[in-house]
């Protein structure tokens, strides 16, 4: 036991030392370094891959190759080191003074300006990275959708401490509502007939379609919330699970949306910038909510409902609002999902989807915006990396989850408040004179 502690302390010390060159690198510096790496890959990636004996650029930092073609691992590692690790480390280290000065200057303007600049850089890096292949593009979009789902479920299962199983159902409602809207208006389809509006309008009305998807999901949430939150007790888990199954079989039996065969020919509206913008909006709005007093009322309900009521908190309103809010974003995510794949069928929104989202929430960490992002991205990458294992993937991921539950019962990054200003701040005290 003591040895273990020793090893742990030693490891921590080592990590701190390894990290020390980057202690002064602000978020802006990391974004610049990521941008540098992806640009380098864009210009030199293919040549370097060939020189290292790889057939093409490793698509997901070598994670996929590792299991598929083990003999390519050394070349892949070299590639990741030369294209990503080394340039990122150098840029992060040596751009730090400049990045800090820029961060400081940006913070003199309203926070939104700084946030938008950071988002633009992040988008640029992701855009260049995704341009390399369609596979990257679609994986990235699905990952961002997973972030939205995870974060919105965290509002209920983490922040509010209830256990909801209805996210696949909300997602299905959002996916179908948004699809019916866009397919009906903009596509010539065997189910809905000729397009009603010119396709040029579609990108402008797409946000409306997503909002519609969100609202329909919220209405579904109302159906669950009324019976579940009327009385105290853990009815939500059961009712919400039933809801998911009901939505699925309802859609299977609705012939006008394609029944079990599904619904296709969604117009190509969920482009990378679109998904990125909606995902950013979702993270921002949810973070706003959970850091407000009205949002923290969900924590009070979770930790002690009687005390919450006695302190003037309207617990019923809090639960209803949080649940419908969460469902709204799951619905929006569903709408995006349908338009990324441009095909949906009811079978997608079953128990496996539920397991996936739950894994992301509990892996990343309860009650934490950052945790949900990490959970969704982590499990998404892991899912892709383990794809060659096929069915064993569904043994490995739960095993990993069990390990996390044993060593960090609330997840990797739980109970941490995401303070935007702190994240965007420079990483050194402002110098008096230089």
């Amino acid at each position: 036991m003591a040895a273990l502690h020793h090893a742990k302390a030693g490891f921590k010390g080592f990590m701190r030392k390894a990290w020390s060159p980057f202690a002064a690198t602000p978020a802006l510096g990391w974004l610049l370094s990521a941008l540098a790496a992806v640009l380098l890959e864009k210009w030199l990636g293919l040549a370097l891959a060939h020189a290292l004996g790889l057939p093409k650029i490793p698509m997901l930092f070598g994670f996929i190759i590792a299991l598929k073609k083990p003999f390519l691992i050394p070349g892949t590692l070299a590639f990741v080191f030369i294209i990503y690790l080394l340039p990122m480390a150098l840029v992060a280290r040596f751009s730090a003074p400049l990045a800090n000065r820029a961060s400081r200057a940006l913070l003199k303007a309203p926070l939104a300006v700084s946030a938008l600049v950071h988002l633009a850089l992040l988008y640029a890096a992701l855009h260049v990275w995704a341009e390399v292949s369609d596979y990257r593009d679609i994986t990235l979009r699905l990952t961002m959708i997973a972030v939205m789902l995870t974060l919105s479920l965290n509002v209920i299962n983490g922040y509010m401490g209830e256990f909801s199983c209805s996210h696949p159902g909300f997602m299905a409602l959002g996916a179908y509502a948004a699809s019916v809207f866009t397919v009906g208006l903009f596509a010539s389809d065997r189910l809905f007939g000729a397009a009603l509006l010119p396709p040029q309008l579609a990108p402008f009305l797409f946000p409306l379609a997503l909002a519609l998807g969100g609202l329909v999901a919220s209405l579904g949430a109302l159906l669950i919330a009324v019976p579940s939150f009327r009385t105290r007790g853990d009815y939500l888990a059961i009712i919400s699970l039933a809801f998911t199954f009901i939505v699925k079989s309802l859609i299977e039996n609705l012939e006008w949306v394609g029944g079990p065969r599904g619904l296709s020919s969604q117009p190509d509206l969920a482009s990378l910038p679109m998904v990125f913008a909606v995902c950013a909006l979702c993270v921002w709005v949810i973070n706003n909510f959970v850091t407000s007093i009205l949002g923290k009322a969900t924590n009070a309900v979770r930790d002690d409902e009687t005390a919450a009521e006695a302190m003037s908190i309207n617990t019923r309103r809090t639960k209803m609002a949080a649940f419908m809010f969460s469902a709204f974003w799951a619905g929006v995510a569903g709408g995006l999902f349908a338009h990324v794949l441009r095909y949906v069928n009811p079978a997608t929104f079953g128990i496996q989807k539920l397991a996936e989202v739950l894994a992301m929430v509990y892996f990343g960490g309860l009650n934490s915006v950052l945790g949900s992002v990490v959970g969704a991205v982590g499990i998404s990458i892991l899912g892709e990396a383990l794809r060659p294992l096929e069915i064993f993937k569904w043994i490995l991921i739960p095993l990993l989850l069990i390990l996390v539950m044993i060593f960090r019962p609330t997840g990797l990054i739980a109970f941490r408040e995401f303070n935007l200003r702190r994240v965007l701040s420079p990483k050194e005290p402002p110098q008096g004179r230089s």
Partner: protein
Amino acid sequence: MALLTVENMTHSFGGLTAVRNYDLSISPGQIVGLIGPNGAGKTTIFNLITGIYAPDQGRVVLNGEDITGLRPHEIASRGLGRTFQDLRLWRHMTVLEHVMLARYSRLDYGMWGAFWGTPRRWRQEAAAEKKARELIAMLGLSHLADQVVINLPYGAQRRVEMARALALEPKVLFLDEPTVGMTPEELDQIIAIIKRVHRELGLAIFIIEHRLKFVMELCQRLQCLVFGEVIARGTPEEIQNDPKVIEAYLGEEKVA
């Protein structure tokens, strides 16, 4: 006119009548004590007045308004703050968050304001934080404001509960055995704090308490409850010398 009155309140749990024909009247600024042996029904009376249970019979009037049967959060926001006998804090939250959350009923920025972070939200939350910090300072907790409550010593947790109840700006403050488990020094400290709160905020206080030293020193009027019925009421001296009280309750305990 009385600030809070309870008339003829009765409540049973199944076959057990926990409170029978209970009456109470508290005027502004008054401190009233409720004593009685374990299981007498004292906490039940708190729960009935604050809306956790709806009384089978009887009426509760606060400031001229009938509040019988309202939900607890509605009663709290009308000016009735309380603490709990078995500390009920929110284990993942800091001291400051506790006190700020009790400002809930004063916020009207709505869910919309929360989602979008409107200027109104920031204004109201800044005001809530200012008020919370004042109360935290008043209860001597400033150095602990950003600590998560479960890390605090017991006495400090009790004070957090009190600060949180005061953030409601109650007209009447209910304290359920505020000294339970406290050392003599902590006891003196809490008496001083209650006196200060009473003086500076000018509120009425209704206290459930076992320790005689405490009620004698603080209360203007006392009620003694046994098996759900008030057997005596009066000034502390009258209660102390009432033979029924001595027999039922003080008998073996020796009046301190």
